[in-house]
């Protein structure tokens, strides 16, 4: 371990230097404002599932980061350092200890944020701290693996372009079989489309059914859409590992492709952090003005039903359902009512879980936690509160609008033996589709399009 002239490790010094470049006014406000009232404590699912362990308390975790700010960037830490608990990191071991807190004891779910009377946004500076550590190469192995996949392959799951295209073509064949229409297409790189549809790579790697279900909905709606051959991953690991450069690169690839295709609207499939990253944070990270509209596929599907473009029959989805709000959708983006409205249109028996909407508990797999195998036992222990919440609904199926939540919930449901299924709205909408006389119109449209393409 190399050291600097002040005896601090080279990496520790880099972390401190970098912090100075990352302190926005929002961050400083949160670092300075905590009065240690403890209101955040009971909002954290880690605390609720580990009641005897104060090291899970948001204020305690925040102080591990706050002490650096006080020591190196705040006047109070220079005048009365002991009073304000100013402190530093001296060794690489100190950084490893910080890593276990910022990656292993918080999912950046922001539930403490909305319950803080001072508006302290722990998730924002916890993310910053993650970024400081990643900057010097200190991160969980899984974070390293996924971040490198997204930097270099272009998506979080290392799906190669040829495999992506092959999967789309496979789902196109399925679409043709199900719609009994040899001209049914899942267009790729079609220019001037009304919609450019971007997805989570999990859909290609583990759940191609979701691609097919979306294609069926677009088909029945007669939508003018395309999927892009590049820049198709709307997820963004930069949100999780605190790397704004990665965040900007990933979001920029999506935006560049929509512009290249001259798409009118970007539709983002169901994924909480993907939606937040691509629609809300991405333009800032990428330092780019976006000239096209964007929306969640939840809103697109809801519009199709309301505008009569598709018909659905809720009796096709028997059983009881509850809805899990993704933290990023609900707390960070306010997407709470549209999914419920849509769900109520495609199932008969919908029961709220409590608390819900912005107060809902994290699936406990958020913030990239599903990629960090070393923290899995702690994550699943912290999931007790979520398991109890799910169980109390008395339903058989939990619906969510987030692929990450699907995995987080599936893991905890298995661990706590709840016997519940997890599904997404796209699956329920596709299953409820009424294939009526309109399909004949669509067949004619697609036949004409195929003829026109062949003639070109």
């Amino acid at each position, binding site marked *: 371990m*190399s050291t600097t002239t002040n005896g601090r490790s*080279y*990496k520790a010094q*880099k972390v401190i230097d970098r912090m100075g470049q990352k302190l926005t006014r929002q961050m400083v406000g949160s670092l300075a404002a905590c009065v240690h009232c403890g209101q955040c404590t009971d909002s954290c699912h880690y605390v609720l599932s580990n009641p005897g362990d104060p090291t899970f308390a948001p204020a305690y975790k925040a102080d591990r980061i706050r002490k650096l700010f006080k020591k190196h960037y705040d006047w109070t830490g220079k005048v009365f350092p002991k009073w304000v608990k100013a402190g530093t990191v001296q060794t690489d071991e100190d950084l490893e200890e910080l890593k276990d807190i910022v990656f292993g004891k918080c999912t950046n779910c922001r539930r403490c944020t909305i319950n803080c009377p001072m508006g302290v946004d722990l998730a924002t500076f916890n993310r910053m701290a993650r970024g400081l550590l990643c*900057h*010097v*190469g200190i991160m969980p192995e899984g974070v*390293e*693996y*996924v*971040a*490198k*996949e997204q*930097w*270099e*392959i*272009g998506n979080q799951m*290392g799906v*190669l*372009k040829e495999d992506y295209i092959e999967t789309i073509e496979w789902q196109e064949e399925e679409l043709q079989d199900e719609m009994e229409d040899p001209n049914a297409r899942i267009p790729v790189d079609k220019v001037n489309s009304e919609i450019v549809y971007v997805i989570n790579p999990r859909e290609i790697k583990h759940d191609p059914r979701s691609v097919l279900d979306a294609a069926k909905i677009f088909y029945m709606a007669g939508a003018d859409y395309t999927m892009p051959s590049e*820049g198709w991953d709307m997820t963004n690991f930069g949100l999780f590992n605190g790397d704004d*450069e*990665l965040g*900007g*690169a990933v979001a*920029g*690839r999506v935006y*560049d492709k929509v512009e290249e295709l001259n798409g009118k609207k970007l539709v983002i499939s169901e994924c909480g952090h993907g939606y937040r990253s691509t629609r809300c944070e991405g333009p800032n990270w990428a330092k780019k003005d976006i000239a096209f509209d964007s929306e969640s596929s939840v809103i697109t599907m809801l519009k199709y039903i309301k505008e009569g473009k598709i018909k659905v029959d809720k009796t096709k989805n028997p059983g009881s359902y509850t809805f899990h709000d993704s933290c990023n959708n609900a707390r960070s983006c306010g997407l709470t009512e549209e999914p419920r409205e849509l769900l109520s249109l495609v199932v008969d028996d919908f029961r709220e879980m409590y608390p819900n909407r912005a107060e809902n508990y994290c699936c406990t797999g958020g913030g990239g936690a599903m990629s960090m195998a070393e923290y899995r036992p702690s994550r699943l222990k912290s999931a007790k509160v979520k398991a109890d919440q799910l169980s109390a609904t008395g339903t058989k199926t939990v619906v969510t609008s987030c692929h990450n939540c699907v995995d987080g919930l599936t893991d905890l449901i298995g661990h706590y033996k709840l016997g519940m299924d997890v599904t997404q709205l796209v699956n329920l909408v596709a299953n409820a589709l009424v294939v009526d006389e309109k399909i004949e119109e669509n067949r004619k449209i697609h036949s004409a399009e195929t003829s026109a393409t062949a003639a070109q």
Partner: protein
Amino acid sequence: MSEKKQINNSTLGVIKADITATEIDAFVFYARNDLKLGSGFGNAIALRGGPSIRKELENLGPLNVTEVVVTTAGTMKAKNIIHACGPKFQEENIEEKLKTTIQNVLKAAEANGIESIAFPPMGAGFYGVPIDLSAKITIDSIADYLAKGSEIKDVVVCGNDTREYKALVPKLQDLNKKAA
């Protein structure tokens, strides 16, 4: 998307492409010290190249920073891979180490009769070298090497996306200004 410049008997160009899918004598993989392929481009090498590359690497590591080794490229479009262990994550003397790594890649290419080679912007992306700095060092170091005369005919630097490509092009154009 591509741009190129003649330097002595060689060309130096910039393209936007997936470096692991280029049809070329050799491409540079920014390798770990232990030579494990890992994720990202390493994953692409494992999937597209097959198991023989990993097998070759078993007996070649570990490497010190700036060292390089050459392997075949299995079933990939390229013939060889130059595994270059460049500096990572803000380590000390990063610019000098990057330059030495690039020189070592070019020397290894010549020693192995490699006539065309593709570089990534060295150290950019996951390993944290800012793209503008990486683009400048990569382009300038290759140009300096080729200016002394080389048997390597074609060198391209591959931007993985528009952001990288747009950072590389002005650095190539700066060479023309210097020459003028």
